[in-house]
């Protein structure tokens, strides 16, 4: 290949991103360094954070990480090739201690679930705080190690260590072992379980017991033989205006909708949504049996670093067949709906949830796959001969337990199929099975029954595929954005306004992530919910963003995400065409019976892309959009007419 051709193929030219010597002042909140780790050679290098104008544009988190990836990742990279990279970034408010939700790290990479869109996993807890305490704002992982390895960063010094003692172990045990191995009780561990090691496409990154960054990051770590990253340090980010940050942080805190122990004894988010997925999304009814035994369990709230929203919790099961099991969970309760969907109820669901988190499989990936297989069994498409003697019956805890192990270790026919994904499971079963799958672009939505709700469904459908999307407008527009008039009625039976609501909420949630905040702690529904967050960011960095600039930063991040897909073959039509049929079926029963957004497709998707400044069918950004966002350098990917 001619040298010119090679250059075109490898867009890796990032020397202008990371200055050798800073010419501009580092804004507050940043540590100033990114660690670049080459697992091929075992070499490591400190990169300076970009100059102030570039930082101001991308801030951190997903936007800065994606920009680095866009600049460095070859267009012909394969998800499991050593050329794939994982770029992990925190944001300026991560680890200040003075705001709720200042806990976020976002990892981006080419997704092995879709092979052509951006994969992203974001985690809260403590890990990101201690990465900054160790002196780094982010990490770029390149290459692949010859043998199981973990990265240990302590007080600004990084080294690669042998991870063979932890290889094959679950996430919780890995965390304990590696913490003991480095001999520092305060060290924080982000690791993969057996699922990541065995390239289950939707393997997660697991950290701080209760936290998982889902959507394939674990599989990419596994392909690089990187078992974990252990961080420890004592540094704290410099702050531009500490007093103002404390004041803004307290205001932010007042907007939080604090969670309570009692909520942890309910059926979780399914209650809010008014629907639980049952029997592969064929019933939405929540019954008493769903929460059987929950009232007897010992529940402890286990909040993230300095966040008072109290999402994560631990449980000790006090009844049922697995009494004594200790589980570590975060908010969201996808893992609960995961097993409700397979007919499991009560404490058995919590037991299996702890197992799946420990193995490191993204729960929806497993549930949507097994759901189809169980339905096929029920309908006679599968029998014991085809399942290796396993009875694929709803609620069969032993079989599901076994399938979890098989999937995580790619054991046998079914283990491999489930590791591949629900679409592959359905295709292998054949017959009508492909019509029973819930998926979006081969990834799976966070496992809840989102079907009764406009905002959430648009969000799931336009997401980057297998990546937890941001957005999802609610029926109440954010009070801080009331000045924008185009909210539409936001009626649950009328499509008007929902696409715009999703576009806006995607933007402010993206912004929250970019600054290092957790969007579970970002409360748009309350007055001051957005303003207090932006003020905290300004006080930390010394910049002076208004709400429009904040939304623009979020918009820019969303645009980088779609450009990444555009470069690799994603078009907007995939958003509504490449969706599992079951996901678009009318709600089968319950209080939202009969509702579906399918009758308003593709118009809703078209409208969303138009409002975001993209072509409705190709998904390419218009030149005007790129100019507005200062992304002209990507003009070759623009829609030109």
């Amino acid at each position, binding site marked *: 290949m001619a040298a010119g051709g090679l250059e075109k193929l490898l867009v890796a030219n990032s020397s202008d991103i990371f200055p050798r010597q800073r010419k501009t002042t580092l804004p507050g909140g940043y540590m100033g360094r990114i660690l670049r780790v080459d697992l091929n050679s075992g070499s490591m290098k400190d990169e300076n954070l970009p100059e102030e104008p570039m930082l101001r544009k991308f801030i951190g988190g997903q936007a800065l990480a994606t920009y680095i990836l866009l600049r460095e990742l070859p267009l012909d990279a394969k998800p499991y090739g050593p050329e794939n990279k994982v770029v992990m970034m925190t944001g300026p408010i991560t680890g200040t*201690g*003075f705001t709720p939700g200042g806990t976020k790290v976002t990892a981006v990479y080419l997704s092995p679930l879709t092979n052509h869109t951006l994969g992203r996993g974001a985690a809260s807890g403590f890990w990101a705080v201690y990465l900054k305490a160790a002196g780094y704002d982010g990490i770029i992982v390149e290459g692949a190690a010859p043998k199981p390895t973990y990265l240990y960063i302590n007080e600004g010094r990084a080294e690669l260590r042998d991870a063979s003692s932890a290889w094959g172990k679950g996430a919780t045990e890995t965390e304990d072992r590696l913490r003991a191995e480095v001999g520092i009780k305060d060290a924080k561990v982000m690791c993969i379980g057996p699922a990541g090691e065995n390239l289950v496409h939707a393997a997660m990154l697991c950290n701080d017991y209760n936290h998982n960054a889902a959507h394939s990051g674990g599989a990419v770590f596994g392909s690089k033989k990187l078992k974990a990253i252990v961080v420890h*340090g*004592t*540094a704290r980010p410099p702050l531009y205006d500490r007093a103002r940050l404390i004041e803004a942080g*307290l205001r932010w805190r007042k907007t939080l909708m604090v969670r309570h122990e009692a909520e942890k004894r309910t059926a979780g988010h399914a209650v809010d949504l008014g629907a639980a997925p049952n029997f592969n999304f064929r019933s939405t009814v929540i019954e008493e049996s769903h929460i059987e035994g929950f009232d007897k369990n010992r529940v402890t*709230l286990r*909040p993230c670093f*300095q966040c*008072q929203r109290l999402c994560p919790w631990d449980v000790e099961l006090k009844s049922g067949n697995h009494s004594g099991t200790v589980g570590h969970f975060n908010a969201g309760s996808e893992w609960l709906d995961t097993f409700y969907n397979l007919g499991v109820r009560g404490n058995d669901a919590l037991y299996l949830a702890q197992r799946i988190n420990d193995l490191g499989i993204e729960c929806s990936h497993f549930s949507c796959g097994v759901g189809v297989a169980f339905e096929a069994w029920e309908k006679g498409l599968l029998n014991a001969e085809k399942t290796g003697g396993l009875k694929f019956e709803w609620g069969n805890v032993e079989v599901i337990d076994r399938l979890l192990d098989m999937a995580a270790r790619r054991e046998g026919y079914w283990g491999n199929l489930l590791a591949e994904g629900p679409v592959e499971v359905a295709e292998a079963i054949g017959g009508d099975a492909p019509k029973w799958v819930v998926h979006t672009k081969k990834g799976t939505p966070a496992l809840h029954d989102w079907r009764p709700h406009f905002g959430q469904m648009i969000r799931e459908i336009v997401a980057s595929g297998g990546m937890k999307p941001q957005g999802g407008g609610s029926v109440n527009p954010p009070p801080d954005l009331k000045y924008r008039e185009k909210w539409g009625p936001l009626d649950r039976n009328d499509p008007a306004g929902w696409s715009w609501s999703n576009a806006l909420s995607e933007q402010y949630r993206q912004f929250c992530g970019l600054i290092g905040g957790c969007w579970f702690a970002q409360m748009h529904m309350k007055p001051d919910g957005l303003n207090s967050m932006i003020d905290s960011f300004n006080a930390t960095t010394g910049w002076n963003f208004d709400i429009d600039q904040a939304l623009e930063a979020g918009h820019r991040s969303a645009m980088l995400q779609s450009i990444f897909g555009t470069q690799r073959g994603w078009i907007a039509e995939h958003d509504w065409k490449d969706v599992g049929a079951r996901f678009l079926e009318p709600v089968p029963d319950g209080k939202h019976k009969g509702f579906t957004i399918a009758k308003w497709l593709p118009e809703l998707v078209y409208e969303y892309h138009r409002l975001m400044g993209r072509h409705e069918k190709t998904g390419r950004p218009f030149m005007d959009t790129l100019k507005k966002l200062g992304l002209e350098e990507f003009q070759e990917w623009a829609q030109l007419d």
Partner: protein
Amino acid sequence: MNEKYGNLIPTGQLLDGKPRTILFDAIKCIGCRQCVHACKDWNDHPRTTVFEISSSNWITMEPPVLEGLSPLWARNSCMHCEYPMCAAVCPVEAITKYEEGPVVIDPNVCIGCEYCIYACPWGVISKDDLTHKASKCTMCSDRMSEDKSPFCVQACPVGALDFGLQEEVSAKARTRAQEVGGYVYGEKEAGGTQVLYVLKEKKESYGIRSVGPQKYPKHKISLPLMLKDLFTLRCGLQGKVRALYLAIIHPRRLLYRYWPWRQVV
């Protein structure tokens, strides 16, 4: 204050002179350590280990296991004694008892003799490795002078920490103890402290020390340390001169420092 303390320990006033108290409710505590980090954040301490008391970690939550992994939690930090032995043994009078409650070490006066470290019945004073000065919780005296509650208290996400006027908090503590079938710790210990705990189980189960009701409890400063201090230039000439001067003008204090079997006031 003068009636209560004479010139035994330095005293001062931050705000309105009304005594205040921190309340720790062990039944509500979930062991999240947000108070521990908040303390570090407010005082701009480095993120050193949260499992041990040090000059950059003024609170620990016991037992020293990861957040959430114990059914019982207790706070371990300065109790802000009403009759603080640390202040009584300090040869340079660097430790002040404020009327509002805080017992505060002035790092500019401290000479690093370590007496207070051994005098503290709860073992919550430590020496800064860099400055060699004694260091501990200040009850956020800086915030208190602005009529704000201690930063750890406002950080607690489950309301296990409370703060207010001593009478009100004592009453609250007793009511709460009654409600949960527990008891109040800190009302009698060392003659009374300005941090109260509501506990349910035995003290030992929380890893909390048993401290007698004696005011200015006996100290554990070792004889070799005292001899070293008296007969060498440890802690610097300036410190010695100041200590000598204060010994001359406040001779009663020597009783507390060198004769632990002394009469109790």
